[in-house]
């Protein structure tokens, strides 16, 4: 597999948290079968931030949502591949990984929110407008950390409290909990939950967590809501955090704060992060490694600085040259000709060939596979796989000039 090829320098001992192998996700539409993700493979190492970067329609969001099987299955179809996941226990006890695409829904529920957490672009939509913040964050604790809630009783919790902690009480029991003998017990539980929730919120540097806990989502700003989401996501100390464009809807200055926060928390908890974004300058500051996606495939992967300073795939080179920077003069931004191809019944060819300045017949007839290159990088481009077949001498490969165009 690609596991060894992609491990960056200095990380040869880091174990894998997740490994995506040949993931294919298609959508049935009136116009045909859309191959949104068509053979994507990459690894996520423990404790790293992997950035998944691409423009609209490249399949990065679909890839992210596949981890937790959040794609609606009509019209979506998991058409192939696997997503292997090693939780902390699995790594400690050297147990085999689970395939997230194949495990039962019940097993998936124990992982969601607990071992793998996800934060989304629009925190407003992900929070229930009718529930106070405190109650919403508390749910995570009731679901996944009910054991800790019972700490207060030092192992001698009455059965009814044990059920209350995991929210499995029957109606009669809930009624009973409102009255004196059990009411004080219920209050103890509630106080414990509130403590944990306040702690989680405080970690995300929300000022005055107790006040926020009794507020409703509409009373908070976008940045604050995103912090609540992060608190909720990290409450159970997950092994993997998936962030799907978490700051796109926020102002630039708030965005920077949230990104700083994610990095601090990530370092403290040593959580692996899969960070999805279309913003190249942002991902540059966030990620340890980057995977660039194009038209449902990975074009190139490697350490962040390597990819930015020596982009190898023609698409990456074109993209970096198109972002305005102080090196550019007005009117001289590099532009990639053409548009993204339709993903319905794509031809067997390199998906980028219609827009690539170096395309050859080989590119137009054969799909390039991801190949390993020195410096722990991978690229999906024929020019690197078989320069002789292209009739190009090795020293005239696109990467020779190096650096952004």
């Amino acid at each position, binding site marked *: 597999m690609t596991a060894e090829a992609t491990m960056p320098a200095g990380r040869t001992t880091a174990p894998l948290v997740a490994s995506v192998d040949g993931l294919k996700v298609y959508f049935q*539409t009136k116009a*045909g079968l*859309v191959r949104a993700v068509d053979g994507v493979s990459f690894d996520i190492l423990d404790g790293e931030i992997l950035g998944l970067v691409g423009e609209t*329609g490249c399949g990065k969001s679909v890839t992210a949502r596949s981890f937790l099987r959040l794609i609606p299955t009509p019209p979506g179809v998991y058409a192939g591949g696997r997503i292997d996941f090693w939780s902390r226990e699995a790594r400690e006890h050297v147990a085999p990984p689970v395939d997230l695409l194949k495990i039962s829904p019940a097993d998936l529920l124990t992982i969601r929110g607990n071992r793998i957490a996800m934060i989304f672009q629009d925190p407003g939509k992900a929070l229930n407008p009718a529930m106070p913040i405190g109650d919403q964050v508390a749910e995570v604790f009731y679901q996944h950390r009910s054991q800790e809630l019972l700490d207060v009783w030092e192992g001698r919790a009455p059965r009814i409290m044990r059920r209350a902690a995991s929210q499995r009480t029957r109606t009669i029991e809930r009624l009973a909990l409102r009255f004196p003998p059990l009411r004080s017990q219920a209050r103890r539980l509630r106080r414990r939950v509130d403590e944990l929730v306040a702690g989680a919120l405080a970690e995300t540097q929300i000022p005055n967590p107790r006040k926020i806990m009794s507020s409703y989502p509409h009373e908070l700003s976008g940045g604050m809501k995103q912090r609540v989401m992060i608190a909720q996501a990290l409450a159970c100390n997950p092994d993997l955090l998936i962030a799907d464009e978490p700051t796109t*809807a926020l102002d630039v200055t708030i965005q920077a704060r949230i990104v700083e926060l994610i990095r601090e928390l990530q370092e403290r908890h040593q959580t692996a992060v899969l960070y999805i974004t279309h913003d190249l300058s942002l991902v540059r500051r966030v990620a340890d490694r980057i995977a660039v996606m194009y038209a449902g495939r990975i074009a190139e992967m490697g350490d962040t600085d390597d990819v930015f300073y020596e982009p190898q795939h023609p698409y990456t080179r074109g993209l970096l040259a198109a972002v305005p920077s102080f090196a550019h003069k007005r009117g001289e931004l590099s532009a990639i000709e053409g548009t993204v191809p339709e993903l*319905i019944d794509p031809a067997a060819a390199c998906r980028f060939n219609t827009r690539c300045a170096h395309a050859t017949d080989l590119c137009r007839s054969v799909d390039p596979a991801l190949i390993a290159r020195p410096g722990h990088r991978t690229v999906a481009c024929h020019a690197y796989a078989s320069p002789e077949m292209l009739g190009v001498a090795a020293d005239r490969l696109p990467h020779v000039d190096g650096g952004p165009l």
Partner: protein
Amino acid sequence: MVDTAARRSVLPTSGPLAVRVKRFGEVARDVLSNPTTVVGLVIIVALIGVALLAPLITEPNRPDPYQMPRDWTALNEPPGTPGHLLGTTSTGGDVLYGVLWGARTSLQMSAIVVSITMVVGTIMGSIAGFIGGKVDEVIMRIVDVFLAIPELIFALAIAAVLGPSFANIIFALTVVFWVKYARIIRGQIIHVKQNEYVDAARVIGDSRFNIYRRDVLPNSITPVVVQATLDMGNIVLVGATLSFIGLAEAGLAEWGVLVSEGQAGISAGRWWASTIPGAMVFLWALAFNLFGDGLRDVLDPRTEGR
């Protein structure tokens, strides 16, 4: 303030998964792909066909074809009697004649009422929505008052005051039913006005009327069309009810009148004079409702006004 970054459209706006306004051909194709809608459409065509062809199928009555012809020699004949395929009433009226010419009166009633109410309602609602301010408030308060009164009672009151006649029923229905359109189109216009293409037209310097005509109205009209289709069915229902209770001329070739005439015979087992015209009313209303619902699904309001 609009959060500029958040306006990055989450729904795709081009390509196969796009959300967009449908062209007429697409609408037709989508409508025909739904079986219940097609059933409704077929029945509508049949009913309208029957209404138009009535003079050819049965000999029009003289002097007034809309009065039921009486054959005093054939009273209370059951269906299947030669010369009176669907039987006759207690006064010798031919049920088949009543069914066919009743379709004509129903078509007249619904077509006239819907045309007038749609035009009047759209004009009033457009003024309210487009001009806004005090004008909007005044018009909408009037609309609210009208809408507060149940349709049937309202129409009944008007027709009763004016005296029993088919023309008065049509008048009453028109007065009652226009407000719905005003409200619908006003809501749509207020929504559509917020679109940037309306601003774009203002920046070009186009007149308000032109902006209304070319940008606002075409993008607001769809729910009105759906409502008109549904009303074609419901107006006949209400109209038949009014004539059933006697607010039309006696002896009119109209389904409600026929149901009323044949009522007395039911306990004696003579079901045909009442049930058959009653079933026609039901069929008419059902057909237009099926088609109208199907049309509404296809013209899904979520893609409108974009």
